[in-house]
């Protein structure tokens, strides 16, 4: 599972972005997006802002859960009271693609590491294939199935932690709400939260 996290201001201006990978199930916390996906990710996130705008007046919750998907990547959203959007794009891939696991090389054709963005294969087929071949009964855990309640809860905890750090940063009188978040401490806090929950 690779994650692309982005904070979008109230005027739809990007304030912060970070790529990281899963740390659960032996993941090393490094994002493994294919090059074309890395270029597409900001577009996918910004496209989902339309959905956020639709939902934000209907749903009073801050955590809006999964709001959008593109190919096999899913977008979760957390909306602060001041319309700052925390968006998390998760691209699932079979857990065995991590290079630290040895059975990766044995049958590479069985584990397509990434769903190509150009193919129109429905995401569910990739997921079922991943969980069927991944075996070991871990199909419902976070990296393989982003639709599961456990995964949603993990993302919620991640967002809640980020919200706290974000409130701390905007309490700073020299920081304004729509200014880019360039603090390295903020970045390390986001990384820690990602390591802890995702």
């Amino acid at each position, binding site marked *: 599972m690779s994650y692309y996290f982005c904070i979008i*201001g*109230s*005027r*739809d*201006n*990007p*304030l*912060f*972005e*970070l790529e990281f990978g899963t740390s659960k199930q032996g993941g090393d916390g490094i994002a493994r997006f294919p090059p074309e996906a890395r*270029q597409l990710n*900001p*577009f996918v996130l*910004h496209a989902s*802002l339309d959905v956020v705008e639709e939902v*934000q*007046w*209907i749903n*009073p*919750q*801050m*955590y809006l859960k999964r709001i959008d998907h593109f190919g096999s990547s899913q977008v979760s959203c957390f*909306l*602060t*009271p*001041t*319309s700052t959007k925390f968006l998390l794009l998760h691209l699932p891939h079979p857990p065995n693609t991590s290079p630290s696991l040895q059975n990766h090389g044995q049958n590479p054709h069985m584990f397509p590491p990434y769903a190509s963005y150009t193919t129109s294969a429905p995401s569910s087929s990739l997921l079922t294939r991943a969980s069927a071949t991944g075996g070991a009964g871990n199909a419902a855990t976070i990296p393989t199935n982003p639709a599961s309640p456990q995964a949603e*809860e993990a993302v*919620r905890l991640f967002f*809640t932690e980020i*919200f*706290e*750090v*974000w*409130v*701390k*940063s*905007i*309490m*700073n*009188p*020299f*920081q*304004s*709400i*729509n*200014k*880019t*978040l*360039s*603090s*390295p*401490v*903020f*970045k390390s*806090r986001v990384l820690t939260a990602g390591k802890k929950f995702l």
Partner: protein
Amino acid sequence: MSTASLSSSTMTSNTHPSFTSSASTASTATTVIPASRPSHTSGLRVPSNRKTIYDRNLNRTRTAELSRASFAYLFSEMVSYAQRKVTGIQDLEKRLNEQGYPVGLRLLSLLTYRAPTPSRSSNAGPARPHRILALLQFITTTLWKHLFSRNADALERSQSSHLEYYVVDNDPLVNMFISVPKEMSQLNCGAYVAGIIEGVCDGGGLTAKVSAHNGGNEMWPQRTVWVVRFEEGVVERETILEKVGKT
């Protein structure tokens, strides 16, 4: 509206271009990469006790009450600072309003963060005030309690305009120690609180203009009425959403 934050308006006069820039930045999303600028780690200055703002707790509420004397002193200084080189009472009120605005923006997030989680669904988290009534109730209860340790005295809906709501305080703390000269009788230093309310409304996406007016009577000479006037589009959206039946 105001772009400078409270302290930067008093210490420096820098404005924040990011807040005033238009929404066209979305098209340049791929080129603006704030997180991956390499030069920031070296120049970081950490306080001597190694505690950054990220290490501090946001939940200091019980023991964090400020003495009334120090508030009165600080506020009188803020008023006299705002009074420098003003052209008139309206200008002075506008400056006070601008000082309060960033406070309101921040308080909206902070108080939502501090709000207790509703017990019925433990994982829902506190809700955003996303409707006019919810927002006004947030202002008269949560915000007022945080600022003045009590609720506002009244919240009324205007008879004449469907855009206007009134927040009433019989004895506002900001006016307690301020005696306005006769030639400036129009002035109400509650304009600072009006700025806070405006910041909360704007931050929540329900754009409004707020002004403070003297509403003194025999019993409450300092009584102040804040007129919250929402934008036409905000009320329109509200009626549409009510019609659809989504609360």
